[in-house]
Protein backbone atom coordinates (compact mmCIF):
# COMPACT_ATOMS: atom_id res chain seq x y z
CA UNK A 1 0.00 0.00 0.00
CA UNK A 2 1.29 3.48 -0.79
CA UNK A 3 2.38 5.25 2.43
CA UNK A 4 -0.19 7.82 3.48
CA UNK A 5 -2.97 6.38 1.32
CA UNK A 6 -5.25 5.56 4.26
CA UNK A 7 -4.64 8.95 5.87
CA UNK A 8 -5.44 10.74 2.61
CA UNK A 9 -8.69 8.85 2.23
CA UNK A 10 -9.60 9.55 5.87
CA UNK A 11 -8.91 13.24 5.32
CA UNK A 12 -11.27 13.31 2.36
CA UNK A 13 -13.94 11.27 4.15
CA UNK A 14 -14.13 13.79 7.03
CA UNK A 15 -14.33 16.80 4.71
CA UNK A 16 -17.70 18.00 6.05
CA UNK A 17 -16.06 19.13 9.28
CA UNK A 18 -18.48 17.20 11.51
CA UNK A 19 -17.72 14.51 14.10
CA UNK A 20 -17.69 10.99 12.69
CA UNK A 21 -17.98 7.81 14.73
CA UNK A 22 -14.90 5.70 14.29
CA UNK A 23 -16.69 2.46 13.61
CA UNK A 24 -18.56 4.09 10.78
CA UNK A 25 -15.33 5.48 9.40
CA UNK A 26 -13.71 2.04 9.51
CA UNK A 27 -16.62 0.53 7.60
CA UNK A 28 -16.74 3.36 5.09
CA UNK A 29 -13.03 3.20 4.34
CA UNK A 30 -12.85 -0.58 4.18
CA UNK A 31 -9.65 -0.87 6.23
CA UNK A 32 -9.17 -2.49 9.63
CA UNK A 33 -9.41 -0.56 12.89
CA UNK A 34 -5.64 -0.47 13.38
CA UNK A 35 -5.02 1.03 9.96
CA UNK A 36 -7.65 3.72 10.50
CA UNK A 37 -6.38 4.66 13.96
CA UNK A 38 -2.80 4.86 12.65
CA UNK A 39 -4.01 7.13 9.88
CA UNK A 40 -5.86 9.27 12.42
CA UNK A 41 -2.70 9.52 14.51
CA UNK A 42 -0.80 10.68 11.45
CA UNK A 43 -3.40 13.35 10.72
CA UNK A 44 -3.30 14.45 14.36
CA UNK A 45 0.49 14.87 14.19
CA UNK A 46 0.04 17.06 11.13
CA UNK A 47 -2.52 19.15 12.97
CA UNK A 48 -5.38 18.13 10.65
CA UNK A 49 -7.47 16.17 13.16
CA UNK A 50 -8.78 17.40 16.45
CA UNK A 51 -8.54 15.23 19.57
CA UNK A 52 -11.11 12.46 19.40
CA UNK A 53 -13.80 12.20 21.97
CA UNK A 54 -14.98 8.68 22.77
CA UNK A 55 -14.14 7.39 19.30
CA UNK A 56 -15.19 10.36 17.18
CA UNK A 57 -13.03 11.93 14.55
CA UNK A 58 -13.31 15.50 13.35
CA UNK A 59 -11.14 17.59 11.09
CA UNK A 60 -9.52 20.73 12.48
CA UNK A 61 -9.38 24.07 10.70
CA UNK A 62 -6.05 22.98 9.29
CA UNK A 63 -7.56 19.70 8.13
CA UNK A 64 -10.40 21.47 6.35
CA UNK A 65 -7.93 23.72 4.57
CA UNK A 66 -5.89 20.66 3.60
CA UNK A 67 -8.96 19.00 2.09
CA UNK A 68 -9.82 22.19 0.20
CA UNK A 69 -6.27 22.29 -1.16
CA UNK A 70 -6.43 18.66 -2.14
CA UNK A 71 -3.45 17.77 0.02
CA UNK A 72 -2.11 14.21 -0.24
CA UNK A 73 -0.48 12.69 2.78
CA UNK A 74 2.88 11.11 1.95
CA UNK A 75 5.62 9.50 4.02
CA UNK A 76 8.78 11.29 5.10
CA UNK A 77 9.50 14.23 7.40
CA UNK A 78 7.30 17.27 7.19
CA UNK A 79 10.06 19.68 8.06
CA UNK A 80 13.66 19.75 9.25
CA UNK A 81 14.10 16.93 11.71
CA UNK A 82 17.50 18.12 12.90
CA UNK A 83 18.82 14.66 12.12
CA UNK A 84 22.22 14.52 10.49
CA UNK A 85 22.25 13.61 6.81
CA UNK A 86 25.13 11.63 5.43
CA UNK A 87 26.82 12.66 2.25
CA UNK A 88 30.06 11.12 1.05
CA UNK A 89 30.96 13.96 -1.29
CA UNK A 90 31.30 16.71 1.30
CA UNK A 91 34.61 18.28 2.32
CA UNK A 92 34.39 16.71 5.77
CA UNK A 93 33.68 13.29 4.27
CA UNK A 94 36.81 13.63 2.15
CA UNK A 95 38.74 14.84 5.18
CA UNK A 96 37.61 11.86 7.24
CA UNK A 97 38.77 9.49 4.51
CA UNK A 98 42.17 11.17 4.41
CA UNK A 99 42.45 11.00 8.20
CA UNK A 100 41.80 7.27 8.09
CA UNK A 101 44.64 6.77 5.62
CA UNK A 102 47.16 9.02 7.37
CA UNK A 103 46.29 8.27 11.02
CA UNK A 104 48.67 11.03 12.23
CA UNK A 105 48.34 14.40 10.57
CA UNK A 106 48.15 18.15 10.76
CA UNK A 107 45.21 20.27 9.62
CA UNK A 108 47.13 21.45 6.58
CA UNK A 109 47.91 17.89 5.46
CA UNK A 110 44.23 16.94 5.58
CA UNK A 111 43.25 20.18 3.84
CA UNK A 112 45.72 19.36 1.08
CA UNK A 113 44.18 15.90 0.63
CA UNK A 114 40.54 16.86 0.86
CA UNK A 115 40.14 20.34 -0.56
CA UNK A 116 38.35 20.94 -3.84
CA UNK A 117 36.79 24.37 -4.11
CA UNK A 118 36.04 25.18 -0.48
CA UNK A 119 36.63 28.81 0.45
CA UNK A 120 37.75 28.41 4.05
CA UNK A 121 38.83 24.81 4.42
CA UNK A 122 41.18 25.43 7.36
CA UNK A 123 38.57 26.96 9.65
CA UNK A 124 35.97 24.41 8.52
CA UNK A 125 38.30 21.58 9.39
CA UNK A 126 39.39 23.16 12.68
CA UNK A 127 35.74 23.23 13.80
CA UNK A 128 35.28 19.62 12.76
CA UNK A 129 38.46 18.60 14.61
CA UNK A 130 37.21 20.31 17.78
CA UNK A 131 34.06 18.19 17.65
CA UNK A 132 36.00 14.98 17.00
CA UNK A 133 38.38 15.80 19.86
CA UNK A 134 35.47 16.55 22.20
CA UNK A 135 34.13 13.00 21.74
CA UNK A 136 37.54 11.33 21.80
CA UNK A 137 37.79 10.27 18.15
CA UNK A 138 40.83 12.45 17.56
CA UNK A 139 43.49 13.53 20.03
CA UNK A 140 45.90 16.40 19.88
CA UNK A 141 49.49 15.20 20.16
CA UNK A 142 51.63 16.77 22.89
CA UNK A 143 54.33 17.95 20.47
CA UNK A 144 53.74 20.55 17.82
CA UNK A 145 55.63 20.82 14.55
CA UNK A 146 57.72 23.96 14.65
CA UNK A 147 56.09 26.89 12.88
CA UNK A 148 57.73 29.08 10.29
CA UNK A 149 56.58 32.52 11.40
CA UNK A 150 58.39 34.20 14.29
CA UNK A 151 55.23 34.57 16.32
CA UNK A 152 54.04 31.04 15.51
CA UNK A 153 53.34 28.58 18.31
CA UNK A 154 53.85 25.74 15.88
CA UNK A 155 51.50 23.42 14.05
CA UNK A 156 49.34 21.10 16.07
CA UNK A 157 49.63 17.43 15.28
CA UNK A 158 46.67 15.09 15.63
CA UNK A 159 46.02 11.39 15.76
CA UNK A 160 42.88 9.47 14.83
CA UNK A 161 42.41 7.13 17.79
CA UNK A 162 38.84 5.99 17.27
CA UNK A 163 38.10 4.96 13.70
CA UNK A 164 34.55 3.63 13.72
CA UNK A 165 34.24 3.16 9.95
CA UNK A 166 34.32 4.74 6.53
CA UNK A 167 31.44 7.21 6.96
CA UNK A 168 32.42 10.58 8.33
CA UNK A 169 30.68 11.45 11.61
CA UNK A 170 28.49 14.53 11.31
CA UNK A 171 28.46 17.31 13.88
CA UNK A 172 25.21 19.13 14.63
CA UNK A 173 25.88 22.42 16.40
CA UNK A 174 22.14 22.90 16.93
CA UNK A 175 21.60 19.59 18.67
CA UNK A 176 25.11 19.52 20.18
CA UNK A 177 25.72 15.96 19.09
CA UNK A 178 28.11 14.13 16.86
CA UNK A 179 26.17 11.60 14.84
CA UNK A 180 28.24 8.54 14.00
CA UNK A 181 26.77 7.03 10.83
CA UNK A 182 28.96 3.97 11.28
CA UNK A 183 27.48 3.15 14.68
CA UNK A 184 24.09 4.69 13.99
CA UNK A 185 24.04 6.77 17.14
CA UNK A 186 24.31 10.30 18.51
CA UNK A 187 27.12 11.18 20.87
CA UNK A 188 26.68 14.26 23.05
CA UNK A 189 29.29 16.76 22.01
CA UNK A 190 29.87 20.28 23.22
CA UNK A 191 32.50 21.75 20.94
CA UNK A 192 33.09 25.51 20.63
Amino acid sequence: MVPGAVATRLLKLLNDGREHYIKGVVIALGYNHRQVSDAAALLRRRGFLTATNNGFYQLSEGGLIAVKNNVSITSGPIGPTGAARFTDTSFRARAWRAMRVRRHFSISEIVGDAVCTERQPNSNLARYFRALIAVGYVIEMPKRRRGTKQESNGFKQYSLVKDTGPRAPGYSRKRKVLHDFNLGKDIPCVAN
Partner: protein
Amino acid sequence: MRPDFVETTNVREFHGVIRAMEDRGAVEACIVVVDGKPGLGKTTTMARWVAQTGSVYVRANIGWDYSWFITDLLTELGFQTIPYGKIKRYTLLIKTLSDRAQAARVQGKTFTLIIDECDLVSSRGEIMEAIRGISDIQSLPTILVGMGKLRDNLRRFPQIESRAPRKVEFLPATLEDTRALMVARCEVPVAEDLVAFVWKVSKGYNREILEAIAHVERAGLRLDPDPGGAGITMADMAGQVIMNDRDTGQPILVPEPV
Protein backbone atom coordinates in the same frame (compact mmCIF):
# COMPACT_ATOMS: atom_id res chain seq x y z
CA MET B 1 53.63 26.41 4.47
CA ARG B 2 50.84 26.25 1.95
CA PRO B 3 48.83 23.02 1.99
CA ASP B 4 48.65 22.74 -1.82
CA PHE B 5 48.89 19.27 -3.33
CA VAL B 6 51.64 19.10 -5.92
CA GLU B 7 51.57 16.77 -8.90
CA THR B 8 55.06 15.38 -8.94
CA THR B 9 56.41 12.91 -11.48
CA ASN B 10 55.36 10.01 -9.25
CA VAL B 11 51.82 11.33 -8.88
CA ARG B 12 51.49 11.94 -12.62
CA GLU B 13 52.66 8.43 -13.34
CA PHE B 14 50.22 6.99 -10.81
CA HIS B 15 47.28 8.89 -12.32
CA GLY B 16 48.43 7.94 -15.81
CA VAL B 17 48.51 4.25 -14.93
CA ILE B 18 45.03 4.39 -13.43
CA ARG B 19 43.73 6.11 -16.54
CA ALA B 20 45.44 3.55 -18.78
CA MET B 21 43.95 0.76 -16.71
CA GLU B 22 40.48 2.17 -17.31
CA ASP B 23 41.21 2.00 -21.03
CA ARG B 24 42.80 -1.42 -20.75
CA GLY B 25 42.36 -4.09 -23.34
CA ALA B 26 42.69 -7.12 -21.08
CA VAL B 27 39.66 -7.02 -18.78
CA GLU B 28 41.41 -8.97 -16.05
CA ALA B 29 44.60 -6.86 -16.05
CA CYS B 30 43.33 -4.57 -13.34
CA ILE B 31 45.88 -4.80 -10.57
CA VAL B 32 48.40 -2.01 -10.12
CA VAL B 33 51.44 -2.37 -7.91
CA VAL B 34 52.64 0.82 -6.27
CA ASP B 35 55.86 0.61 -4.33
CA GLY B 36 58.83 2.66 -3.26
CA LYS B 37 60.85 3.50 -0.21
CA PRO B 38 59.31 5.45 2.70
CA GLY B 39 59.29 9.22 2.33
CA LEU B 40 58.66 9.40 -1.41
CA GLY B 41 55.01 10.49 -1.20
CA LYS B 42 53.05 7.23 -1.38
CA THR B 43 50.96 7.96 1.73
CA THR B 44 50.19 11.51 0.60
CA THR B 45 49.23 10.28 -2.86
CA MET B 46 47.01 7.52 -1.48
CA ALA B 47 45.44 9.81 1.13
CA ARG B 48 44.48 12.32 -1.54
CA TRP B 49 43.31 9.60 -3.95
CA VAL B 50 41.10 7.96 -1.32
CA ALA B 51 39.78 11.32 -0.11
CA GLN B 52 38.87 12.49 -3.60
CA THR B 53 37.51 9.23 -5.08
CA GLY B 54 35.95 7.53 -2.06
CA SER B 55 37.84 4.37 -2.97
CA VAL B 56 37.87 1.48 -0.53
CA TYR B 57 41.05 1.56 1.52
CA VAL B 58 42.29 -1.22 3.80
CA ARG B 59 45.59 -1.61 5.55
CA ALA B 60 46.92 -5.18 5.40
CA ASN B 61 47.32 -6.96 8.70
CA ILE B 62 50.07 -9.51 9.22
CA GLY B 63 47.54 -11.73 11.00
CA TRP B 64 45.13 -11.81 8.07
CA ASP B 65 43.67 -15.06 6.94
CA TYR B 66 41.04 -15.33 4.21
CA SER B 67 38.13 -14.87 6.60
CA TRP B 68 39.61 -11.90 8.41
CA PHE B 69 40.49 -10.24 5.10
CA ILE B 70 36.91 -10.53 3.81
CA THR B 71 35.53 -9.32 7.15
CA ASP B 72 37.84 -6.29 7.08
CA LEU B 73 36.70 -5.45 3.57
CA LEU B 74 33.03 -5.70 4.58
CA THR B 75 33.67 -3.50 7.61
CA GLU B 76 35.37 -0.98 5.37
CA LEU B 77 32.32 -0.99 3.11
CA GLY B 78 30.24 0.10 6.09
CA PHE B 79 28.74 -3.14 7.38
CA GLN B 80 28.49 -3.26 11.16
CA THR B 81 26.86 -6.71 11.09
CA ILE B 82 28.76 -9.27 9.08
CA PRO B 83 26.74 -12.30 7.92
CA TYR B 84 27.75 -15.72 9.07
CA GLY B 85 29.21 -18.10 6.50
CA LYS B 86 31.90 -17.78 3.88
CA ILE B 87 29.55 -17.87 0.92
CA LYS B 88 27.19 -15.23 2.33
CA ARG B 89 30.07 -12.92 3.21
CA TYR B 90 31.71 -13.29 -0.18
CA THR B 91 28.43 -12.78 -2.05
CA LEU B 92 27.68 -9.65 -0.03
CA LEU B 93 31.17 -8.33 -0.66
CA ILE B 94 31.02 -8.85 -4.41
CA LYS B 95 27.55 -7.32 -4.68
CA THR B 96 28.48 -4.27 -2.62
CA LEU B 97 31.69 -3.64 -4.55
CA SER B 98 29.76 -3.97 -7.79
CA ASP B 99 27.09 -1.49 -6.63
CA ARG B 100 29.72 1.03 -5.50
CA ALA B 101 31.68 0.67 -8.74
CA GLN B 102 28.52 1.19 -10.79
CA ALA B 103 27.48 4.23 -8.79
CA ALA B 104 30.95 5.72 -9.31
CA ARG B 105 30.81 5.05 -13.06
CA VAL B 106 27.44 6.80 -13.31
CA GLN B 107 29.06 9.84 -11.68
CA GLY B 108 32.07 9.60 -13.97
CA LYS B 109 34.38 8.77 -11.06
CA THR B 110 37.05 6.11 -10.67
CA PHE B 111 36.41 3.59 -7.93
CA THR B 112 39.29 1.43 -6.78
CA LEU B 113 40.21 -0.99 -4.04
CA ILE B 114 43.45 -0.12 -2.28
CA ILE B 115 45.37 -2.50 -0.08
CA ASP B 116 48.15 -0.69 1.73
CA GLU B 117 51.19 -2.29 3.37
CA CYS B 118 50.58 -5.25 1.11
CA ASP B 119 54.14 -6.45 1.73
CA LEU B 120 52.86 -7.94 4.98
CA VAL B 121 50.67 -10.44 3.15
CA SER B 122 52.22 -10.62 -0.31
CA SER B 123 53.86 -13.97 0.36
CA ARG B 124 50.54 -15.57 1.38
CA GLY B 125 48.88 -17.31 -1.51
CA GLU B 126 45.47 -17.49 0.19
CA ILE B 127 45.22 -13.70 0.54
CA MET B 128 46.74 -12.88 -2.83
CA GLU B 129 44.38 -15.31 -4.57
CA ALA B 130 41.43 -13.73 -2.75
CA ILE B 131 42.55 -10.30 -3.98
CA ARG B 132 42.95 -11.62 -7.52
CA GLY B 133 39.50 -13.21 -7.39
CA ILE B 134 37.78 -10.05 -6.19
CA SER B 135 39.62 -7.93 -8.71
CA ASP B 136 38.81 -10.34 -11.57
CA ILE B 137 35.11 -10.81 -10.86
CA GLN B 138 34.47 -7.13 -10.66
CA SER B 139 37.14 -6.00 -13.10
CA LEU B 140 37.79 -3.78 -10.16
CA PRO B 141 40.94 -1.67 -10.38
CA THR B 142 42.94 -2.84 -7.39
CA ILE B 143 45.98 -1.00 -6.11
CA LEU B 144 48.49 -2.91 -4.05
CA VAL B 145 50.78 -0.56 -2.14
CA GLY B 146 54.04 -1.75 -0.68
CA MET B 147 57.59 -0.82 0.10
CA GLY B 148 59.98 -3.38 -1.22
CA LYS B 149 59.11 -7.05 -1.02
CA LEU B 150 55.78 -6.71 -2.81
CA ARG B 151 57.05 -6.83 -6.36
CA ASP B 152 59.42 -9.70 -5.63
CA ASN B 153 56.77 -11.73 -3.84
CA LEU B 154 54.27 -11.32 -6.65
CA ARG B 155 56.65 -13.15 -8.96
CA ARG B 156 55.83 -16.28 -6.98
CA PHE B 157 52.23 -16.00 -8.17
CA PRO B 158 52.37 -15.84 -11.98
CA GLN B 159 48.57 -15.84 -12.23
CA ILE B 160 48.57 -12.61 -10.23
CA GLU B 161 51.73 -11.17 -11.75
CA SER B 162 50.13 -11.48 -15.16
CA ARG B 163 47.25 -9.32 -13.92
CA ALA B 164 49.54 -6.60 -12.68
CA PRO B 165 51.30 -5.49 -15.82
CA ARG B 166 51.29 -1.94 -14.56
CA LYS B 167 53.66 -1.05 -11.82
CA VAL B 168 54.31 2.37 -10.40
CA GLU B 169 57.59 2.67 -8.59
CA PHE B 170 57.77 5.85 -6.54
CA LEU B 171 61.24 7.22 -7.22
CA PRO B 172 63.12 10.08 -5.61
CA ALA B 173 61.89 13.51 -6.71
CA THR B 174 63.55 15.09 -9.72
CA LEU B 175 64.95 18.61 -9.68
CA GLU B 176 61.76 19.75 -11.43
CA ASP B 177 59.64 18.06 -8.76
CA THR B 178 61.66 19.76 -6.03
CA ARG B 179 61.24 23.13 -7.72
CA ALA B 180 57.48 22.52 -8.09
CA LEU B 181 57.17 21.57 -4.42
CA MET B 182 59.09 24.64 -3.28
CA VAL B 183 57.16 27.01 -5.52
CA ALA B 184 53.79 25.61 -4.48
CA ARG B 185 54.36 25.00 -0.80
CA CYS B 186 56.86 27.61 0.35
CA GLU B 187 55.41 30.97 1.32
CA VAL B 188 58.57 32.80 0.32
CA PRO B 189 60.22 32.73 -3.12
CA VAL B 190 63.28 30.48 -3.36
CA ALA B 191 66.24 31.09 -5.64
CA GLU B 192 67.40 28.42 -8.05
CA ASP B 193 70.69 27.72 -6.27
CA LEU B 194 68.88 26.89 -3.04
CA VAL B 195 66.36 24.70 -4.89
CA ALA B 196 69.22 22.72 -6.42
CA PHE B 197 70.95 22.41 -3.04
CA VAL B 198 67.76 21.14 -1.36
CA TRP B 199 67.30 18.59 -4.13
CA LYS B 200 70.87 17.39 -3.78
CA VAL B 201 70.95 16.97 0.00
CA SER B 202 67.41 15.60 0.27
CA LYS B 203 68.29 12.92 -2.29
CA GLY B 204 64.80 13.45 -3.68
CA TYR B 205 62.88 12.35 -0.57
CA ASN B 206 59.67 14.37 -0.23
CA ARG B 207 59.78 14.24 3.54
CA GLU B 208 63.18 15.91 3.60
CA ILE B 209 62.18 18.43 0.93
CA LEU B 210 59.20 19.50 3.05
CA GLU B 211 61.45 19.77 6.07
CA ALA B 212 63.73 22.02 4.04
CA ILE B 213 60.78 24.13 2.95
CA ALA B 214 59.90 24.76 6.60
CA HIS B 215 63.45 25.90 7.35
CA VAL B 216 63.62 28.09 4.22
CA GLU B 217 60.27 29.65 5.02
CA ARG B 218 61.35 30.39 8.58
CA ALA B 219 64.51 32.07 7.38
CA GLY B 220 62.74 33.85 4.57
CA LEU B 221 60.00 35.32 6.75
CA ARG B 222 62.67 36.74 9.07
CA LEU B 223 64.57 38.26 6.15
CA ASP B 224 61.36 39.53 4.52
CA PRO B 225 62.58 39.25 0.93
CA ASP B 226 61.31 41.28 -1.98
CA PRO B 227 58.27 39.37 -3.32
CA GLY B 228 59.29 40.09 -6.90
CA GLY B 229 62.92 39.19 -6.33
CA ALA B 230 64.89 36.05 -7.07
CA GLY B 231 64.08 34.64 -3.66
CA ILE B 232 66.03 33.25 -0.75
CA THR B 233 69.48 32.16 -1.82
CA MET B 234 72.07 29.85 -0.36
CA ALA B 235 74.00 32.91 0.77
CA ASP B 236 70.93 34.14 2.71
CA MET B 237 70.81 30.83 4.59
CA ALA B 238 74.53 30.24 4.95
CA GLY B 239 75.35 28.35 8.13
CA GLN B 240 71.70 27.55 8.89
CA VAL B 241 70.11 24.13 9.18
CA ILE B 242 68.22 23.10 6.06
CA MET B 243 67.21 19.57 7.12
CA ASN B 244 68.33 16.52 9.08
CA ASP B 245 70.15 13.70 7.33
CA ARG B 246 67.75 10.76 7.10
CA ASP B 247 70.51 8.21 7.61
CA THR B 248 72.44 9.80 10.47
CA GLY B 249 69.89 12.18 11.95
CA GLN B 250 72.52 14.92 11.96
CA PRO B 251 71.57 18.44 10.84
CA ILE B 252 72.66 19.46 7.35
CA LEU B 253 73.81 23.07 7.16
CA VAL B 254 73.78 25.32 4.12
CA PRO B 255 77.46 25.89 3.34
CA GLU B 256 79.03 29.31 3.64
CA PRO B 257 79.70 30.95 0.29
CA VAL B 258 83.21 30.37 -0.93
